[in-house]
């Protein structure tokens, strides 16, 4: 028989070692505990953000092609970067992106703020209409891209019939997606339709955060509604508006799915935003090195612009 029997001595030893462990744990400094908690997060960040970033930077200086792994990877220095920055087609893509970002954000901010002012007042069916307004942003961009393609169809699409109803222009006499002049506006229009509710929500949060006492003070001072809007409402909502602009700008700068499904970058390359160029170069042409360089350029541009913007935003908040 080889059964172990607890003796007072062994029990004492176990108790002592357990207590020692607890003491050791209790003895961890705040710094050590902090490290204990953030280490998994840091490890994840390193694995899925920092490592790919460093790898992308490294690839951007090579002629690497992911579909031709057997080819010897050659260091090409800054050739990819100079090629990209000197490529007129790419600058045209940048202009397309800028046009899309600028106009969609402008329209979303104006309309979103107006809707927020409207929804901020109680009226009959308030909840119902608020939900209806929010519906577009709940849809998938892929779905939106697809069904707007049908809506824009010149012969059977609802959009052309609506234009015909209000203006008398025959529906099949013009086309939105295939027209050189109108195609860039089609993506602006759809993005505005989809994301105005999002800007509205953020503005609504801003409006609801303004204390009633400030409006009461303005009333005591006999400020007009117009003056109250310019001196109270707008400045108080401004940080929220700027935040909405930041989120939408970042999102639209990398917009891919909706544009891809709606116009596929066409007609020609007139709606080819840089994200579509990047996807084509990386995953269709397999110019991995070149597209890594483009990704880094875009990253630096967005990161730099966002940082400047956040500094301005902080200044506005401090005012």
């Amino acid at each position: 028989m080889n059964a172990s029997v607890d003796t007072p001595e062994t029990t004492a030893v176990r108790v002592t070692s357990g207590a020692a462990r607890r003491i050791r744990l209790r003895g961890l400094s705040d710094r050590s505990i902090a490290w204990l908690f953030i280490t998994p997060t840091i490890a994840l960040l390193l694995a899925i953000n920092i490592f790919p970033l460093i790898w992308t930077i490294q690839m951007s200086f090579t002629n690497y092609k992911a579909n031709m792994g057997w080819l010897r990877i050659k260091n090409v220095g800054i050739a990819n970067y100079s090629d990209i920055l000197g490529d007129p087609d790419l600058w045209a893509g940048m202009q397309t992106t800028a046009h899309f970002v600028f106009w969609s954000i402008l329209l979303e901010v104006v309309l979103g703020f107006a809707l927020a002012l409207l929804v901020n007042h109680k009226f009959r069916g308030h909840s119902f209409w608020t939900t209806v307004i929010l519906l577009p942003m709940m849809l998938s961009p892929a779905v939106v891209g697809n069904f707007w393609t049908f809506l824009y169809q010149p012969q059977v699409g609802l959009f052309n019939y609506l234009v015909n109803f209000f203006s008398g222009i025959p529906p099949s006499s013009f086309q939105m997606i295939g027209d050189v002049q109108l195609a860039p506006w089609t993506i602006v229009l759809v993005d505005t339709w989809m994301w105005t509710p999002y800007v509205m929500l953020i503005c609504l949060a801003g409006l609801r955060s303004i204390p009633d006492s400030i409006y009461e003070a303005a009333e005591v001072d006999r400020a007009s509604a117009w003056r109250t809007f310019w001196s109270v409402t707008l400045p108080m909502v401004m940080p929220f508006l700027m935040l909405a602009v930041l989120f939408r700008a970042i999102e639209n700068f990398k917009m891919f799915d909706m544009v891809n499904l709606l116009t596929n970058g066409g007609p020609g390359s007139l709606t080819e935003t840089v994200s579509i160029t990047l996807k084509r170069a990386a995953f269709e042409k397999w110019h991995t090195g070149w597209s890594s360089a483009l990704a880094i350029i875009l990253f630096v541009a967005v990161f730099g612009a966002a940082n400047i913007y956040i500094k301005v935003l902080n200044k506005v908040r401090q005012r």
Partner: protein
Amino acid sequence: MKPTDKTVRGVVALATIAALALGSGAARAEDKSLTLCWAAWDPANALVELSKDFTAKTGVKMKFEFVPWTSYADRFLNELNSHSKLCDLIIGDSQWIGGSAENGHYVKLNDFFDKNGIKMSDFVDATVVGYSEWPKNTPNYWALPAMADAVGWTYRKDWFAMPDVRKDFKAKYGRDLAPPKDWDEFLQVAKFFQGRQIAGKKVYGAYIFTERGSEGITMGVTNVMYDYGFEYDNPKKPYEMNGFVNSAGAVKGLEIYKQIFDCCTAPGMTNAYMSEGLDAFKSGQVAMQMNWFAFFPGLYKAMGPDKIGFFVNPAGPSGHYSQLGGQGISVVSYSDHKDDALNYIKWFAQPSVQQKWWEIGGYSALKAVVEAPGFPKSAPFAPDFLVTMGIVKDFWAEPNYASLLLDMQKRIHNYVVAGQGTAQLALDGLVKDWTKDFKDAGK
């Protein structure tokens, strides 16, 4: 000796393990399966039907991975490039052959063909060069021609037969209305129908490929450009493209395509490929439709013999050609079931299977099928298919074909649909792009 509880438990446990092991072994034998990857279209459904015979004969179950044409290349080239084991067999596009051979994605089939008596001389020459060989015109085979295909045309037979329509056409052009034989005739017919009222409905002249994202507009425009003298490179000096891609004839061909787009297509057809053409034709929107022969059996079935007629791609001043489509079937080298996959190819190559393949909606490339005396009468589009397979040309099949294709898509769409620049500028730009692509690829 009376067995103890312990002994009984031991025996039961052993028996259970043995049963599980045997069961899983049997299940493994029953579950032998192959996954075949292809595009989601009518012939794929026919192949599902055909493959039931293979399963019945061998017990190997067939699974299918079909994806829409618009994402077909993206999806399966990604699978191949990532050395995925998803597909045991793949019916890959003709342009993939160079890359798939050089990258080691496909199993080389020469030895297998020799061992099993499969002769490439038994298949239509154009399909062997187009779907199986890499390098081209050398006896190195990476696929068995599986689905012969090319661009052809359909026309509204009922409209062409209307007495008032025929009378108007004769009065206008001084000849009988008939399917066009060259591009001048084509333009006349297309212009004639454009905007015409037929049975109280406005109709349009023609449907042509204009799709931007994958390969559409390139697969369309080449049908005109080949006929006007477009060549991919100097036949005597490979990769020398200046003066061939942008020759005066090629420029003229491109201008004709734009002319057709501008004068004679329905509104909104600015990014349209196969399915849009089928819809436009079936719904009575257009008089003539460009599309792949692969769709014609289904279209004929859907519309009936009175409404649909077929014709070969029109000829031009420099020749008579048509864009090759279609695919070969290959064994993926990363597959764990290569032997079964090769068995499938061996089965598929049999004349009786190829005959059935044609009968149920596929397009066989086996000479025994297409050169049989009864073939031209076996379907109304069969004679045109036979003629077309004798005049086909294909796009580059180089390993970097995707770059070459995307460049052409961009240049052509910019000129034809967006109306940017001139045909000469578009093709000069294309020469520049392709020269850079080949330089990058070390050629």
